[in-house]
């Protein structure tokens, strides 16, 4: 019996009959409640984005007017553009830094301060976001940095690094070092070993880290609100300002589009990781 839960964690795909769900009374109904709680608000949000009425919660027939309106709104367009620029640059830089950091910590042997370095990299995950936001804001003010969107990009890069770092390091730790030795043994220089063996094998981890960074950055509100000045409004910040001016189904439409982008990224990652597996 004791091997059943273990099998369940190591190979989730193979153990179909490991835990007989039907044996736990009431589990099925709780599961339904759980999923309703989780997804009903999102379903409602998407549903009312197709509302033809001006009032969000008053159904006035089906229409895609609010989508058209959202696409024609210059402010939304510039907010989406800002969000994409920030998320893309922050993701690329954060993933690159996280990859190098993970390589040093996983392959660099034992050096002084290794444990502390590891702690310092992952610590931002535990620091409350509002603390980071205030700290970054004060820091930028103190050094007089005023690059507009650049400030937002730097702030996003900073908090994306630990998110990118975790999956990359996990992948590296699970990688058999004898593969890299085999490459060296077969006349590959250190660079060639990195290029032809380490990087391809690390790719699923790098992709996961990049995807996580991108989604976290696209979604960030508190830090962006604090750091971003006029002209560097991102989509979440813009949506918040729209709500303050009054609810219209345009917000629903924009939120639905944001959700679509997230789903697209996750799907793309899933397809890519399936390809590298076989």
């Amino acid at each position, binding site marked *: 019996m004791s091997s059943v839960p273990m099998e369940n964690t190591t190979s989730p795909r193979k153990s179909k009959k490991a835990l007989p769900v039907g044996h736990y009374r009431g589990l099925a109904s709780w599961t339904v409640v759980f999923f309703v709680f989780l997804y009903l608000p999102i379903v409602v949000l998407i549903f009312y984005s197709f509302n033809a009425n001006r009032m969000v919660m008053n159904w006035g027939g089906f229409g895609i007017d609010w989508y058209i309106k959202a696409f024609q709104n210059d402010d939304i367009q510039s907010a989406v553009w800002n969000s994409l620029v920030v998320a893309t640059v922050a993701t690329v830089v954060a993933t690159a830094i996280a990859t190098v950091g993970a390589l040093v910590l996983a392959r660099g042997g034992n050096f002084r301060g290794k444990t502390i370095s590891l702690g310092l990299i992952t610590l931002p995950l535990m620091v409350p976001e509002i603390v980071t936001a205030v700290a970054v804001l004060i820091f930028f003010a103190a050094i007089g940095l005023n690059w507009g969107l650049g400030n937002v990009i730097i702030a996003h890069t900073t908090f994306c690094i630990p998110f990118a770092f975790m999956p990359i390091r996990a992948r590296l730790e699970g990688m*058999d070092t004898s*593969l890299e*030795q*085999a*490459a*060296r*043994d*077969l006349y*590959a*220089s250190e660079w060639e070993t990195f290029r032809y063996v380490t990087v391809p094998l690390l790719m699923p981890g790098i992709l996961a880290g990049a995807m996580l960074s991108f989604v976290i950055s696209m979604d960030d509100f508190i830090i962006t609100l604090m750091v971003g000045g006029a002209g560097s409004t991102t989509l979440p910040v813009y949506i918040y300002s729209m709500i303050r001016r009054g609810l219209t189904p345009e917000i629903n439409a924009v939120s639905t589009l944001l959700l679509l982008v997230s789903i697209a990224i996750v799907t793309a990652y899933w397809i890519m990781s399936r390809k590298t597996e076989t």
Partner: protein
Amino acid sequence: MTAAIDIRGVTKIYNPGSNQPVKALDDVSLTINDNEFFTLLGPSGCGKTTLLRLIAGFEQVSGGEIMLFDDEIENLEPNRRPVNTVFQHYALFPHMTVAQNVAFGLERLKKPRPEIKATVERVLSLVKMKHLADRRPNQLSGGQQQRVALARALAPSPKVLLLDEPLSALDLKLRQAMREELKQLQKETGITFVFVTHDQEEALAMSDRIAVMSEGEVQQIGGPTDIYEHPLNRFVADFIGDTNFLDGEIVDLNEDLVTCRIGEQSMFEAENSGGHRVGDRVTLFLRPEKIRLSTPDDAVSTESRPGTVANIVYLGNQAAYTVDMGDGVELTAQARPREDGKLPFAVGDSLAVGFSARALRVLAQ
């Protein structure tokens, strides 16, 4: 005979600076000849794998020299050493096909494309894997992965092939078949093989010469028969095969034989290997298969002694008998089951135990 690898006083200490330095190899010297199937044999932790990794370049020597055909290699990077390794768990690149795996070394050596293609085909047919060239490693069985690992290591025509317990992950039948193939492959290619194993049967079956290692030192180097029949010390005798050990004292000797007292008054004669004196404490050893068991009436040899069956372990094609010889002496011997499948003797039977003095050897303490 040319030396392929010459290990000169090599020492390896792990964590030298720390408070727990581990001496993995202690002043090891040995010579591996060109075109030889050489085996490093010993229990885990004896330093055999460390020595192989030092030759491959995955570890740095703490002292001593490693010569490869007159070139000093111990300070070269692994990719500058013309040797290739077959890893214990194969270490095939999972993101490449079989053919790409085999071509990897040749590509790094910047060989021309047509030559790479031809070599890959040649070594893959050498290991009978040509038909699976486009598969990924995870689509292959353990035995097939093993063959690909061999092909990949052989493709760049290394001066020496290093094999790190390559058969240990295979099941028994496959392991036995691969023994033959490895031996055959070594003859066909003419490449020097350095084979690491803890399996004495594997070592005896394949090797031209064997180095038996223990605790970072070489205990004995010799051909399979040398090692089995003339072990230099108790460790070698014990590690290779089953053995009876008899501890005693030399009471008499002449040019051919020494006479030892074992227990209170049992006298055993053994071959005089030279350098012994009366009064020396020695260990005699006697292989179980050199002992003939018979019923007292059938005893043909005058050299036989009486004994009683104390225990039997049935092994299928034979049975191991523990025979009580009296005076606190016990010997392990072997007997085959009869044609009807029954064992020839039962526990408590009286026996005539026959062995010649030439089968007993004196070991250094």
